[in-house]
C-alpha cells in the first residue's frame, strides 16, 4: 500500500495513529475528528488500470452501528442517485440496507449495514451470461451497464441478496453512477470516489465510525491491522467466497 500513499494520507498516518485506535478523538468540546479508518488512497489517474496489488475492502463494527440510524443508507443513495420510490417497495433498489438481528438464544439486538460483499470469488460473476457482472482487478465487484441484459441470474446467485433490479425508467441519475431501467445494480463501493482517492460515501458519513475502508492486501493499512487484531466474521463464511466486507460484533 505504501506506493499509494499521498501527502494527506502520510499526514494522517503520522498524526493520527491514535485516531485509528481509539475510534475518534475530541479536538474541541462537542467537536470530534471522526475516525474513518484507512485514510484516503491515492487517486487513480485516468487511463491507468486498477491495480491487482490492491484489494479494497470494508470492516464494519456492528457494536458501533446504532439501531435506527440510516446515515450510511442516506449517504449511499444520495451519492448514487438512488431515490426512486416504486408503488411496491419490494421493487425499490437498495444498494445498502440496515439489518436488525435478534439472537434467538439471548434476545440481544445487533444492527448492521449489509451491501455487496465484494467477494473474491463472486457467484454473480460466475453466472452472468454476458460477463456484465465483473470483478475489477482491485476486488470491486461491478455491473457493466452496457452489457447487462437484465436476466437477473446474478440476483438468484447472490448469497447476500445484495443486488437490485431497476424496475422502472429513471430520471434522477447522478453523473458518477450510471443507472437505468432493466439492468441489475448493487453497491459499487463508490468506485467513482475511490478512483478519486476518496472513501465510499457510507464510510465517510457514518457518525459512529463503524465502517473502515481500505486495502486488505496492505498489512500496514488500518483495516488490515484491525482485522489482524480483532475477531472478525465473513457472513456465510462456509461458502468460502473470500469476502471484501468483514464484520465485527456478530
Amino acid at each position: 500500500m505504501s506506493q499509494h500513499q499521498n501527502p494527506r494520507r502520510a499526514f494522517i498516518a503520522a498524526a493520527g495513529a491514535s485516531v485509528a485506535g481509539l475510534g475518534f478523538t475530541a479536538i474541541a468540546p462537542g467537536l470530534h475528528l471522526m475516525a474513518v479508518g484507512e485514510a484516503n488512497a491515492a487517486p487513480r489517474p485516468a487511463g491507468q488500470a486498477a491495480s491487482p496489488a490492491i484489494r479494497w475492502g470494508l470492516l464494519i463494527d456492528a457494536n458501533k452501528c446504532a439501531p435506527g440510524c440510516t446515515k450510511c443508507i442516506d449517504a449511499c443513495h444520495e451519492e448514487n442517485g438512488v431515490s426512486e420510490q416504486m408503488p411496491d417497495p419490494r421493487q425499490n433498489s437498495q444498494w445498502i440496507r440496515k439489518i436488525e438481528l435478534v439472537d434467538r438464544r439471548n434476545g440481544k439486538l445487533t444492527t448492521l449495514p449489509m451491501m455487496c460483499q465484494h467477494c473474491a470469488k463472486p457467484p454473480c460473476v460466475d453466472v452472468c451470461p454476458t460477463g456484465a457482472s465483473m470483478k475489477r482487478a482491485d476486488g470491486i465487484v461491478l455491473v457493466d451497464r452496457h452489457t447487462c441484459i437484465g436476466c437477473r441470474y446474478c440476483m438468484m446467485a447472490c448469497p447476500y441478496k445484495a443486488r437490485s433490479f431497476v424496475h422502472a425508467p429513471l430520471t434522477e441519475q447522478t453523473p458518477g453512477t450510471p443507472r437505468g431501467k432493466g439492468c441489475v445494480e448493487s453497491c459499487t463501493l463508490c468506485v467513482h470516489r475511490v478512483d478519486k482517492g476518496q472513501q465510499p460515501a457510507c464510510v465517510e458519513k457514518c457518525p459512529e465510525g463503524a465502517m473502515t475502508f481500505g486495502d486488505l492486501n496492505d498489512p500496514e493499512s488500518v483495516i488490515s491491522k484491525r482485522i489482524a487484531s480483532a475477531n472478525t466474521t465473513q457472513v456465510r463464511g462456509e461458502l468460502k467466497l473470500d469476502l471484501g466486507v468483514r464484520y465485527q460484533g456478530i
Partner: protein
Amino acid sequence: MATLNPRHEEGLFYALAVLGGAVSAIGLAAALYMEHSGHVVTGMNNQIVWGLPHVFAIFLIVAASGVLNVASIGSVFGKKPYKSRAPLSALLCIAMLTGGLTVIMLDLGRADRLMVAATHFNPTSVFGWNVILYPGMYAIVAVYLWTLMERRMNPYSKVAGLATFIWRILLTTGTGSIFAFLVARQAYGNAILPAMFIIMSFAWGLAVFMIVQKTMFGWNDMTLHAAIRGRMKNLLGTFVAAVFYFVATYHLTNIYFAKQTAFEEFILLSGGIFPVLFWVGYVLVGTVLPLLLIYVPDLNRLRGSVFAASTLVVIGAFCLLYVFIIGGQAFPLEIFPGYDVKSSFMDGAIDHYSPTLPEALLAFGGLGIAFTLTTVGVRVLRFLPQDDIAELEAAGSIVD
C-alpha cells in the same frame, strides 16, 4: 371430428390458427408493454426475481427436450412403432423451444440487447452455455427433421437422431444446472437437479406428445392401435413414477439436513399456496391420478384415459415448477443462522408473489406460439404418425 365436412374442417383449422396467433400476439404486446414500462408492472420484485413467465418458459423448454424422446426411442433405440412418430416429435420440440425461448428473451430487463447476449460469452455461466445449446438445438433438430422427411437423407437419420439425443440431454442438463449451480438459496444448489430435469423432460414431453397425437388422430378420425397405445401409456407411467422418485429424493435429502428443514417445512407444510400446489397439484393431480389412470385396468381401458392422464401430468408439471421456482425464491435466504432477521429488503421474511396481467399474458403467449407453430406445422406438412400395423406385427414390434 369425423362428422366435419372438409369446409368445416378447414374453418376449424383457421379458427385454431387465429386463436393461437391472437394469444401469441397478445403475449408479444404484453412484452412490449413490460419493456416500455419496466418490470414495475409485473408482480416480480427484488426477492422473487423470476416469476410466472419463467415457470411457463422452463416448462416449454424442458418439455421441448423431452418430447424428442419419442424420436430417440425410434431412431437411437430402434423401436419401430416410434419411428413414424419422430417427425411430429421434432416439430413439437421446435415449437415448444420457440415458445419457451421467446418468453425468456422477452422477459429480460433489456430484451433489446439480445445481440449483446449473442456476442458476449461467459464460459462459467450456465446461461452462457444455453446461448450455444438452444440455437444448436434448433440446428440439430432441423437437420434431423430433414433426414426424416427427405427420403434421400433417410440413411442419415440414425446418426442425426443420436446427435439429437446427446444434444438434448446436454440441453436439459443445462436447464437443471441453472438451479443446481446456485449456492445462495436453500431450494437450489443440489446436484440431483440436472438429472431430475432430464427425467421431468421425459415425462412432460411424452405427455405433450400424447395429447397432440390423440388430438391429431381424433381430427383425422383415426384410432391409435391398442398395442401402441399400451406401450406409450406404460412408458408415460414409468416416467411419471421416476419423476416422483427424484422429487421425493430431493425433498427427503433436504429434510435430513438440519439446515434445510425450515425450508422444507415451508414448502411442504406451512407455505400457503406452495404446499397446496405441491400436494394437490403435483402429487395428487400430476402423479397419483395419472398413475391410476395408466395402471388400473378398469380405468386404463376407458376411452380418453391416456389423454386425461397426459393432461393431468402437464397440470402437475406447472404446479411443480411453480413450487420449485416461485416457492424457492419466496423463502428468505438464511444469511444469519441463529438470528431473527428484519430489514427493509424482506430479509428474514416470507415473500408473496401475485402475477400481474402483463406477465401472465406473456407467459401464455409462449404457449400460444408453441400451439400456433404446431397447428400450422401439422397442417402444411406430413407429421401425422402413420402406423403400418401389418408391418409392425410382422416384425414382432407390437403384440396385443
